[in-house]
């Protein structure tokens, strides 16, 4: 792999093989990568919340699954990806803490983030080749555009690829 570009929280980065993408310590957020194997163009979004329309302060479009995914698609196309070749993988959306008494929108934020990203991919007609979402563990993900594998690291679990 060339340079591994770091994607922060509420952030998005696009690059081209041999460079790869990573985001560290995803909790309830989602890390989603869309890529075009024919050109090696790939992009990763790290979004925190499912829906920009449900929230007043939505200037940072990378914060949300809906606006973030729109921008992710726009930027990988601008970088030269072929629209019809795009495929996707995603991970994250864990429920790190749980409280019996908490409102459900606190307890299931990870699952709602995952569903919001999956729904956007469906709307774009981009195939989701692999996903590892839910559970209660944080995840670090690394995407290598040479192999198209998304490596996942989590505490107490062997490193694995999807």
């Amino acid at each position, binding site marked *: 792999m060339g340079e591994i570009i770091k994607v922060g929280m509420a952030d998005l980065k696009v690059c081209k093989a041999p460079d790869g993408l990573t985001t560290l310590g995803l909790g309830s957020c989602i890390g989603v990568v869309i890529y075009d194997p024919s050109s090696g163009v790939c992009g990763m979004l790290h979004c925190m919340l499912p829906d920009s329309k449900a929230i007043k*302060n939505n200037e940072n479009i990378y914060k949300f699954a809906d606006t973030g995914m729109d921008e992710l698609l726009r930027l990988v196309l601008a970088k030269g990806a072929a629209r019809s070749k795009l495929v996707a993988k995603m991970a994250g959306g864990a429920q*790190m803490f749980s409280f019996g008494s908490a409102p459900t929108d606190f307890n299931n934020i990870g699952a709602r983030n995952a569903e919001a990203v999956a729904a956007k991919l469906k709307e774009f007609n981009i195939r989701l080749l692999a996903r590892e979402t839910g559970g209660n*563990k944080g995840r670090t993900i690394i995407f290598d555009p040479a192999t198209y594998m998304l490596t996942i690291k989590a505490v107490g679990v062997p490193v694995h690829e999807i």
Partner: protein
Amino acid sequence: MLNLDEMNQMQLDVLKELGNIGAGNATTALSKILDAKVDMKVPKVEMVGFSEITNIIADEETIMTGILLLLEGDVNGMMMFLLDMPSSRKLVNSMLLRDAESDDPTDFDDMELSALNEVGNIITGAYLSALSDLTRLTIVSSVPSLRIDMAASLLSIPAIEFGKVADKVLLIDTEFDDLSAIKGYFVLVPDLESYEVMLKSLGL
């Protein structure tokens, strides 16, 4: 509503003082549990972007114990107490009179985790009761929830909550000083309206 970008020095100083009093009381409680000297640094009141919050305490992938409480009443928001793994082991050993050495997260059994959660409960309780006494505000906390995981994944939870109302997170954080036996951090993240309530309660 409170404008994050227009807070004045006076307001920031008062928030810092709140952190000071809360953490001071918590530090005393911790000293008693450990029967050792624990002191803290001057608290920081910081406004950080989402990209920074994940490594404000430690590198993103540093494994830590996070104990989270949800706050309700006059002050809404979250409080998180973070401990590094050697300190987690030390505290568990003090509580249970054990002398286990491993601080690998998978080596903590259920009883040890529950002891750690109880430490978190006592310490955050001490912090919040000092805060409540000073401001005369009612602060009701949930039972604590404990998770050992990467620092970034733990801190993403308050970040998401604050992300619903802002593009930055305003937090009051306090750490123990370098001479203390324990490496731990308090992160208090009230929601925006609660900041106003707290400041008003002190006449600002």
